[in-house]
């Protein structure tokens, strides 16, 4: 069970700081000192020092408010290195870097807020390598579907600040952070959609009274509940089975729930001035990051096929303790 004081504090902090205007401005300016300073001040820049379930619970709250800061990345950096990395810090999610003697060269692609952080952690040949962003010869600005910075950093014979054996599997832990964030975004999307359908009137009554609209509301609520249950399950038993299953469910939910939520909101949901896109665009982006439903379903399916028919149901109930 996660720490309720911690969660309650996170709820208040993100509700106060991540207003629609702040999240909107963070996208335009590609950084939010306001949110980062508040989150770091509350200790959320060192989530890797908490119990895993507590760290994920904070990320879920961050996802619920579309917090435009690299909290998941700070946690991932800490887990990779084995202790909190002074920040702001981000991680390089993919390969592309190589170690040559005692220096590092190559490209670090899709680095969240790469231009705005002080250092990044990359996994090179099984080593967690800490690099100062100042040591990059070039930084190219890119973004994901949600407009969150996903930059390319170019290194040429850069001297790492630190090299240690990577203390976790980045793809698994990365997927875990995305499940936590997505559970929050889906919960927010469900609340927003149900509330909107109750307020918006057409034909003289709230649109929530129309059965065709109710079908969409139920879909959003179901997907949010399913991913909420998955996030809770994977926080308790963060094995490969649970991570894979949870990311499959979250990735599919990103598509199904966003489609239904947008349909309920009509044209209003397509505008920047209304908040829905903070959640739908993030869900679409996070669905892809650290492996989509196809990637994780294939890994899960392969493991299940090896375990065989006799172990199918025990795997469904016991997860990574069985498979």
């Amino acid at each position, binding site marked *: 069970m996660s720490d309720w004081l911690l969660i309650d504090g996170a709820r208040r902090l993100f509700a106060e700081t991540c207003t629609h205007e702040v999240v909107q401005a963070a996208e335009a300016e590609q950084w939010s000192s306001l949110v980062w300073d508040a989150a770091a001040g509350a200790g959320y820049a060192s989530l890797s020092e908490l119990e895993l379930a507590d760290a994920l619970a904070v990320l879920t709250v961050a996802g619920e408010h579309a917090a435009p800061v690299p909290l998941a990345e700070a946690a991932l950096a800490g887990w990779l290195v084995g202790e909190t990395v002074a920040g702001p810090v981000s991680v390089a999610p993919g390969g592309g870097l190589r170690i040559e003697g005692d220096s590092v060269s190559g490209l670090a692609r899709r680095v969240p807020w790469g231009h705005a952080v002080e250092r990044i952690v990359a996994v090179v040949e099984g080593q967690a390598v800490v690099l100062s962003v100042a040591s990059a010869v070039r930084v190219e600005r890119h973004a994901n579907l949600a407009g969150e910075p996903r930059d390319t950093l170019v290194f040429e014979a850069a001297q790492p600040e630190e090299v240690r054996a990577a203390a976790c599997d980045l793809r698994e832990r990365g997927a875990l952070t995305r499940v936590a964030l997505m559970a929050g975004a889906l919960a927010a999307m469900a609340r927003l959609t149900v509330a909107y359908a109750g307020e918006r009137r057409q034909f003289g009554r709230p649109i*929530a009274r129309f059965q065709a609209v109710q*079908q969409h509301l*139920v879909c959003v609520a179901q997907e949010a509940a399913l991913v909420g249950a998955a996030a809770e399950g994977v926080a308790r038993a963060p094995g490969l089975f649970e991570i894979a299953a949870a990311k*499959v469910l979250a990735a599919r939910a990103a598509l199904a729930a966003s489609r239904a939520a947008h349909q309920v909101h009509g044209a209003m949901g397509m505008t920047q001035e209304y908040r829905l896109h903070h959640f739908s665009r993030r869900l679409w982006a996070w669905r892809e990051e650290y492996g989509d439903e196809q990637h994780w379903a294939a890994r899960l399916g392969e493991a299940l*096929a090896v375990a065989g028919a006799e172990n199918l149901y025990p*795997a469904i109930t016991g997860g990574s303790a069985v498979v």
Partner: protein
Amino acid sequence: MLFAPADLTEEELELQREVRAFLATELPRGTFEPGLGMAAPRDRGFSAKLAERGWLGMAIPVRYGGRDRSAVDRFVVSEELLRWGAPVGHHWVADRQTAPTINRFGTEEQKQRFLPAICRGELSFAIGMSEPEAGSDLAAVRTRASRVEGGWLLSGTKVWTSGAHVSDWFVVLCRTGESTEDRHAGLSQLIVDLRADGLTVRSIPFLSGHRDFNEVVLEEVFVPDELVLGEIGGGWAQNTSELAYERGGPERWLSTYLLVEELMRAHEEVLGTERASIVLGEMVASWWGLRRLSLSVARMIDAAEAPAVQSALVKEMATRFEQDVLACVQELVALEPVRDGDSLLERILFEATLSAPSFTIRGGTNEILRSVAAKGLGRL
């Protein structure tokens, strides 16, 4: 929080191990024809064996023959029986919904009379809700009970009454008062003997040829006062609470489970492709997630909450998934469903194909569940 957390305790896991060991010994694979979830055959002898182990009426108090355990314990036992394809038909309705409803609303005399016999696996019950003019709109029931000395005279017609021809009793939702502006007023539940005078059971053959479905015609059937369940006029609320037991359980996502296990056992060759891995992985991810939600409904029942909205949400998506599973298996293996096929997979594919449309109808259509859930979401 909309759903309660769902993990099994060490005691619950121990129960799971016991049930698995029991099934492996009592009902080894290959020695019986497994059924598809709750549509599995009726077998009094098997139900009696479960009763001996204390696995019927688990959440019923010990003084009425139960074990004072929990809805989660019942969940653990049920999911193992269902996924095994065990013959649960005889006790299914009584154990799932009649016993908890009598325990909650029944008189002391009713509890003494029915609960121990249900817990021993002796009495079986059917469900007397649907009527020709009252399907999804259950408040439209026309079956009427009129007051006479010492009881009620019950007249009307119930349909889609599974097992009425072999069960002992059924709980009938009927009108005892006038329908006012509140359509839910004036409804009551009566416990009715399926062999009573004036009661006729007529078979309605299922499209597969199975004869489990019935029409039950009631012509001035006398029901004594002591068989009124709960309050006269309180039938709607009682029936709604009964539906929370009927919805959201493992029988809503395990009806087609065995197809996949059997596919893996008998057709290992189809699992080698990436596509097959993805399909298998996606199905198992769904089972894992749905099971957690379903387990959390059981936890909420144990916490004396009323998870009507949650169970409607779960049943609506879980039963669609049951149908998806059939489609996935059909995609992975080219095998004609055959009633008396040589392989088990051919035979259960036959049953599944012909019964799958009912998954999203029985126990409340998906359309009515969406309506129940959507109204509840506005209030949560």
